[in-house]
């Protein structure tokens, strides 16, 4: 069976390590980007089934990366979960305005993230 592919985009080494540790135990292939620009490039090239996108990243932040991904034919419908240390309502709203499908806050709650991943992948 073909594994589903998840793109993780975060400039934080600790955040990437945690997200990878949670996801590699599940039946997913994980690829990594370390800024928003890289995330858009990799999403176009690798066609992930789902993208987990940090908000605060260098070069291009997560909101802008999400906005661009929604403008591209290849990634228009790819589910996106945004991740941030900022859980205030206006930040969450900004994420939905640029087209994310769901939202999690740091520190990451493993069961919550995995539940949202499975839900968006239709599992």
């Amino acid at each position, binding site marked *: 069976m073909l594994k589903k592919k998840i793109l993780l985009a975060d400039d*934080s*080494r*600790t*955040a990437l*390590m*945690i997200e990878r*540790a*949670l996801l590699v*135990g599940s039946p997913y292939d994980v690829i990594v980007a370390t800024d928003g620009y890289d995330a858009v490039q990799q999403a176009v090239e690798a066609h992930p089934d789902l993208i987990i996108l940090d908000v605060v990243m260098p070069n291009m932040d997560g909101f802008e990366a999400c906005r661009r991904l929604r403008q591209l034919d290849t990634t228009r419908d790819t589910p996106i979960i945004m991740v941030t*240390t*900022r*859980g*205030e309502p206006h930040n969450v709203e900004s994420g939905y305005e640029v087209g994310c499908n769901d939202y999690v*806050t*740091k*520190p*990451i*709650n*493993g*069961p919550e993230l*995995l539940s949202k991943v499975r839900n968006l992948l239709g599992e």
Partner: protein
Amino acid sequence: MHPVDEEQLQEALRENARLTERSLAVEQQVTDLANLYVAVNSLHAATDPAGVIAALREIVANLIGSEEFALFDADARNGHIRLAAASGVAAFRFEAIDIGSGIIGIVAETGRPYVRREGGSGQSGSDESITACLPLRIGTAVTGVLAIFHLLPHKGVLEDPDLDLFEVLSAHVAPALQFARGYHGGRT
């Protein structure tokens, strides 16, 4: 077709609920263990003091849920605590701290951690705003103190896995810093 046995159906549903609950508990355990592993790995991967501070900043933000901390070196010979790094709080607040004075000084003196599970409140950098104040040890000697101030609003309260993480920080920040200072100093 056999008619559905109501009792069997109910038992299957109960079993499903038990398995779901167990699965969630395992996922939480994986998260907690991953946090501890990532914290240790990040601290010891740094080869210069700035790298250790950057790792600490990420650990405090991504694993604990705060953006405010101050790191101190304890100078037992002179009875002072010296600020080594601060993030999200004004450094001038910590210009002169005597060992044994205030929460930070008392933690340096006694080597016993201070934890306020509901999180600190009040003016940033004040004793009231401290969520956790941890002795940093090399072996049994307290060589520094880490003070973590306000929690992020969505964090709520500290839970048991956070306390496990504090123990890791207590045991690993000072050795990581000592190694990084020595390694970096030897190369420059």
